[in-house]
């Protein structure tokens, strides 16, 4: 069996003499052998290059189906058989019509197949990212084993410049890792003991050991590949109408062609040749190829490109829904904010306040304690040993630090009152929705520490970008109104809905949906109901299984700017689908009447050759237009000045 490429080359070679003949005709030039040579050349094309069309058309016909091959076969066979009849009865032949149509259509199919490969290679590229093998430590020895033999719990050594084989956690050493291929994050990330590493990412400078946590189909990369595959084969709802049309299209075109012939020949007294040419043109131009590939190719390119940016769009339905979204609801903690409280202000002598606080909190498991200890570590303040540690219910903790009775907690821990200066500073900090603790010794305050869950660096610019695009932004949180509003004003969000219990988030989303379609952005762990209720659920960061399950769009990075990119990309992809469909429809609705000779009175007619060329071009333009999605500008500033 010949490939499409070889069939095209064969057809081209045999068509060239026919072309010379056609161009030479007005100048009195003819191929040696005249019409008989044309007959031989075209017969060869029909038998070799066009035969698969005929074969397929016949196979479909027997199953009561019709496809584009039916149209190509009927069109060219009609032209060919008539010409044979004309040859035998000494009339004008039009063998070249059949030959050229076949050549053009094969050219179109060949180019289309090549472009489609380009469009669908995103999955292949993702798969190629996988490491081929890993250096596993077994019985104290490092052995190189193929990727498939790596098991959960294996300890794997990664040296500089090596690929990390599977997902896991570092147990020894540290390094900087380039995760751009999986997360889209362009800056290398530094990792140390206890940090998670992602399979298929690239280690840069350090050597480390990590314990394999997820292998095979459970790795983040495997899940991404699976999701992209599903997205690329899914159908956008807009496609359903197209499919209905495609189902009846070919038989309807055949009927139209017969009607064309009959009207010209019987009612308008056109010659048999001209009537036949009109009918053949109708059959050839009408191929619904462009309609068929308009959606899938755009979907492939759009979802493939977004996957490279660390944005996973689940399917065509999500893509279409993302296009209608008007309101974007954000979860606060972990989505707009970092999700970890941080020390923002220290009032008083920083060194002594921090040291006393850190010493007192060293044994505590309170989330605020973690913030203080992190700050102390960053400031290189070491905690002093404590004795007589005591927690005071509803107030704070006390202990003996450096021989003095020290405390940390609320104002009740202070004997008497705070100095007016400290009191006013405390009030100011509280107004900013910060949690303020007092640190002191012997019942007198040393200073204050203010702690707050701060917004991510990407939050404010992302909200600005979304508002600029006309979205209404809402923040949803279980925190009290004051804290929520302080954060909202920092990042510039439109509305705040505070004091929402975790279980009620979905209900709030449903209420907002009554006004306009809603996208919900959350971290995917405790927001699953809200994510599934919203028209579009956008799960942020972490790349956890739950996020991948419940989000329609999954952002692998923890960067709010990706919400903007995701929505922009979804909109661009959907618009491209619409544009492709629009042109495909226009092409057919204009092409068929012209081919049928409706405008023949104005001198506007379409020969079968031109119809064949037009058909090839329409499919090509649909694929090319989809491929353009790869280069379209997304207009989001990826880098935020630090």
């Amino acid at each position, binding site marked *: 069996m010949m490939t499409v490429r070889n069939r095209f080359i064969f057809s081209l070679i045999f068509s060239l003499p026919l072309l010379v003949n056609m161009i030479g005709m007005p100048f009195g030039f003819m191929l040696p052998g005249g019409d008989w040579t044309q007959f031989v050349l075209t017969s060869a094309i029909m038998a070799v290059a066009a035969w698969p069309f005929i074969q397929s058309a016949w196979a479909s016909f027997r199953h009561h189906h019709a496809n584009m091959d039916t149209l190509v076969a009927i069109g060219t066979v009609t032209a060919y058989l008539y010409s044979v009849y004309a040859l035998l009865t000494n009339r004008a032949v039009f063998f070249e019509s059949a030959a050229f149509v076949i050549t053009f259509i094969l050219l179109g199919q060949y180019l289309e197949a090549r472009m489609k490969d380009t469009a669908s290679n995103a999955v292949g590229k993702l798969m190629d990212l996988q490491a081929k093998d890993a250096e596993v430590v077994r019985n104290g020895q490092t052995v190189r084993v193929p990727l498939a033999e790596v098991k959960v719990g294996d300890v794997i050594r990664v040296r500089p410049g090596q690929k990390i084989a599977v997902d896991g956690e570092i147990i020894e050493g540290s390094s900087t890792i380039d995760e751009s291929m999986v997360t889209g994050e362009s800056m290398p990330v530094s990792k140390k003991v206890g940090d998670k590493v992602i399979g298929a990412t690239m280690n840069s400078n350090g050597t480390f050991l990590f314990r394999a946590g997820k292998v095979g189909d459970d790795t983040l990369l495997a899940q991404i590949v699976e999701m992209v595959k599903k997205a690329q084969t899914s159908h956008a709802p807009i496609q359903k109408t197209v499919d209905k049309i495609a189902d009846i299209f070919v038989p309807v075109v055949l009927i139209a062609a017969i009607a064309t012939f009959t009207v010209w020949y019987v009612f308008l007294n056109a010659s048999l040749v001209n009537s036949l040419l009109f009918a053949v043109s109708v059959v050839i131009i009408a191929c619904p190829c462009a309609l*068929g590939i308009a959606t899938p190719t755009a979907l492939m390119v759009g979802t493939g490109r977004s996957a490279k940016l660390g944005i996973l769009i689940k399917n065509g339905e999500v893509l279409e829904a993302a296009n209608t979204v008007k309101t974007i609801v954000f979860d606060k903690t972990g989505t707009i904010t970092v999700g970890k409280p941080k020390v923002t202000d220290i009032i008083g002598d920083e060194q002594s306040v921090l040291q006393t606080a850190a010493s007192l909190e060293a044994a505590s498991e309170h989330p605020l304690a973690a913030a203080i200890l992190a700050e102390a570590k960053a400031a290189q303040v070491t905690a002093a040993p404590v004795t007589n540690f005591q927690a005071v219910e509803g107030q704070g903790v006390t202990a003996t630090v450096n021989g003095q009775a020290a405390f940390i907690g609320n104002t009740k821990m202070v004997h008497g009152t705070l100095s007016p200066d400290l009191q006013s500073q405390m009030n100011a900090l509280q107004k900013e929705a910060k949690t303020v603790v007092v640190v002191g010794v012997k019942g007198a305050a040393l200073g204050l520490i203010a702690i707050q869950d701060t917004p991510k660096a990407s939050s404010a610019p992302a909200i600005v970008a979304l508002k600029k695009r006309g979205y209404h932004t809402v923040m949803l949180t279980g925190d009290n109104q004051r804290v929520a509003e302080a954060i909202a004003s920092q990042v510039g969000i439109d509305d705040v809905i505070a004091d929402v219990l975790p279980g009620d988030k979905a209900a709030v989303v449903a209420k907002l949906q009554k006004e306009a379609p809603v996208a919900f952005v959350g971290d995917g762990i405790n927001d699953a109901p809200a994510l599934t209720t919203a028209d579009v659920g956008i799960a942020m960061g972490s790349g956890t299984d739950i996020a991948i399950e419940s989000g329609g769009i999954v952002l692998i990075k923890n960067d709010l700017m990706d919400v903007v990119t995701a929505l922009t990309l979804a909109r661009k992809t959907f618009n491209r689908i619409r544009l492709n469909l629009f042109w495909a429809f226009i092409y057919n609705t204009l092409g068929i009447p012209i081919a049928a000779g409706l405008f023949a009175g104005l001198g506007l007619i379409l020969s079968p050759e031109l119809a064949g060329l037009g058909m090839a071009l329409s499919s090509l333009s649909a694929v090319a237009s989809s491929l353009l999605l790869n280069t379209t500008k997304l207009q989001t500033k990826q880098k935020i000045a630090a």
Partner: protein
Amino acid sequence: MIKLTVLLTAVALIGFIGWWFFGHHETAAVAAKIEKTGQDAQVLVSGGYAPETVVLKQGLPAKLTFLRKDPSTCLDHVVFPDMGINDFLPQDQAHTIDIDTTKPGEYEFACGMNMFHGKLIIK
């Protein structure tokens, strides 16, 4: 006289096309062959899918083998939108696809352009 014949032939032809393509033509569903370790079914790809409906038993690993006889590029891919499968079918070579039968239901499959359809019923 010739014109009248042409007209009548045309009308008859249109009628035939309408009946042949739009009329109701029943196709039978075929159940997979069940063995101890799994089940398998064959689908011949030639101007469509034969059989067009394949019935699989839930929970038993299934192999669906496509054999494409048709040279048309229209049919050179088979797509299962719900399962994320988009496979190339080499002509005249059997291509086997593993089907996940854990969830019962009806799953459509189609060619790359969604013009030819088939159905998988898992129950």
